[in-house]
């Protein structure tokens, strides 16, 4: 069923997007027998040109990547895709993060300020995307880039989701620790920016330990990209990202581009969500390992680890930090 849907999407985008048709024009869809054979496009094409399968009148939302390397991906989606993204995110969030409504404290400036200055980027998408699953949403960082202690100490807080981009969380963690988060149960959800953290010589373990010091009962890293919004991967307690729902992941050898397992490769992500643009099969610059066998956490879904970015790849960050 998943494969059939991907083939349908390949056909659909070939018929509705001239740029995509040029990329995959010669592929014989009838010969595709596995998801590994689905043609893929490199994620950079979304930075180079507008690649869309919908008419302008149907555009519901324009999404932009953080554009750390100077050029942003621009993705235009219709209402149907937006709904599918929300539904998928909701299912994944409930399964992997929490099924209870929480108060979101996000480690960033007020979301309306970010939108005003930078547009609807990956940070805003993260805050608003996960924010809809929460009772309330409050910014913890003020205009001077310091922690708002009154927000952290609010008597109204019960169960809190502390959300933010990884380096931002690290940057403000001491100040948060000093103030203390006044709540009964704390989950930390963070994503992006590992390159920056590595440059500060902070390991994942060190980061997690710091979050537990803040009182976190669960620390979850998420991995996703604006080019495939709705298909988000959450880390388990072993730091592996598990593949669930409407998505699949494949690691490919950098030289042969053949699928590989238990070895470092360049990551391809597949999702049946994108109907507005040909983003259903994307080859990224992310380097990772697709693991075989069961993860120690007990989750039976396939799992992978992200190691970094390809050396000569354009540095792409989703945190703007």
């Amino acid at each position, binding site marked *: 069923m998943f494969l059939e849907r991907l083939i349908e999407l390949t056909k659909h985008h070939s018929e509705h997007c*001239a*740029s*995509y048709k*040029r*990329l995959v024009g*010669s592929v014989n869809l009838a010969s595709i027998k596995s998801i590994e054979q689905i043609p893929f*496009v*490199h994620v*950079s*094409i979304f*930075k*180079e*040109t507008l*690649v869309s399968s919908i008419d302008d009148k149907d555009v519901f939302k324009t999404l932009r990547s953080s554009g750390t390397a100077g050029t942003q991906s621009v993705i235009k989606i219709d209402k149907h895709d937006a709904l599918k993204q929300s539904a998928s995110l909701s299912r994944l969030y409930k399964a992997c993060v929490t099924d209870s409504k929480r108060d979101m404290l996000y480690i960033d400036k007020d979301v309306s300020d970010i939108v005003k200055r930078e547009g609807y980027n990956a940070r805003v998408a993260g805050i608003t995307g996960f924010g809809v699953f929460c009772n309330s949403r409050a910014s913890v960082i003020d205009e001077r880039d310091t922690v708002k202690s009154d927000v952290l100490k609010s008597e109204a807080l019960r169960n809190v989701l502390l959300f933010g981009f990884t380096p931002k969380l690290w940057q403000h963690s001491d100040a948060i620790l000093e103030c203390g988060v006044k709540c009964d149960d704390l989950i930390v959800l963070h994503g992006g920016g590992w390159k920056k953290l590595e440059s500060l010589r902070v390991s994942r373990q060190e980061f997690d330990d710091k979050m537990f010091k803040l009182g976190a009962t669960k620390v979850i890293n998420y991995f996703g990209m604006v080019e495939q919004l709705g298909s988000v991967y959450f880390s388990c307690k072993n730091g592996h990202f598990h593949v669930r729902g409407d998505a699949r992941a494949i690691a*490919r050898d*950098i*030289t*042969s*581009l053949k699928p590989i397992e238990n070895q470092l490769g*360049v990551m391809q992500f597949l999702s049946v969500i994108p109907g507005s643009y040909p983003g259903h099969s994307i*080859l990224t*610059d992310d380097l990772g390992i697709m693991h075989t066998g069961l993860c120690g956490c007990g989750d039976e879904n396939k799992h992978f680890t992200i190691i970094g970015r*390809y050396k*000569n*790849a354009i540095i792409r960050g989703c945190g703007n930090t």
Partner: protein
Amino acid sequence: MSAIDSLETFINTTNVTFDDAVIGVCSKIANELLKSTVPELVALGYFFRYRRIEQFKKQYSCQSNLRRFPVGTVLHYAPSNVGTMFAYSWMLSFLCGNANIVRLSKNADDKQRLTLDIIKKHLGEFGSNNVFVYATHDDNDALAKSADLRVLWGSDESITNIRKSCLRPSARDLVFSHRYSVAVAHSTCIDEKSCHKLVSDIIAFDQNACTCPRAVILFDSSLDDRLKSCELAKGELLQDSSHLRLRWIQCAQAKFDVSVTMNDLCSRVFVVTLNDDCEESRKMFKYLMDTHPTHNSVIKFISDNDHASVSNVLDRHLQTIVDCDIVSSSATREFATHCNPFRIVRPGDSMKFDIIWDGKDLIEEFTNRMRIM
């Protein structure tokens, strides 16, 4: 030691152009380079062999009413893409009698270090007016103050950045900025030997050198089959990334309305047919040359159009045309009149250095002339 500290020992005294003692030092350096096992070092040594230097001396000193003298202190910014390039620039300037400050790239390969070791070993007393430094761009202002001539080898971005540091009013820049090269073939008379030489031109320096052809322009679609033996998939390449090549070609395909064919996802050779829309072709060509991943990839442009139409896609950044026609060069020379490359070379010769580079005679540039009336 910082770059500026190194300059404290620098003495800006010049020598006589083609001074015998300087020629002696250069010959010793060349002899040692010729003993190297590294081909690029041997090529450098061969270029500066004693007989060649004597030829230069004769060639540039033959007029009785004209005498050459050094321009003064020459500041060289070495490129990072070809490790031995700094030595060509420096040694010619040294022979011309100038004092030299060579700003080396920290990103260059081992060949830069090996060459520098040999140069330093033989410099002797000339070490005081020939200094080699690893400086950052923060040092550009200080370096600029000392120069009578600043020689800039590098990308457009680097050069623009360096030129923000002003020279003295009497000083000037000699600029070697971003260039690309192409190979051109008209007839089917291309033998296998030429094809292999062309491949060696294409893959030299991992395609980082501006003289390596990044495109082969075929003026006859039947030539494509003839050049099959020139496919680069020989497994002889050290660095490889199908991933980067795919990114490059897919971005071009998504951006421009052009047809690109490739054998498979791991192709190194992409065949592009230039379409009739010259503006679209020109933009696409520029994009492909500017974003080339320098990973052993080449575009084969096939065109049945006339010379003038095809030359419109090439711009002022064109440096070298590798002429693949072994029987007659007249067609390529005619083509060159439309696009004005700085050089036309035979397959296998694209990496050869010449004292006339990017249209500039380096010995003329490194000297001033005294006219005796």
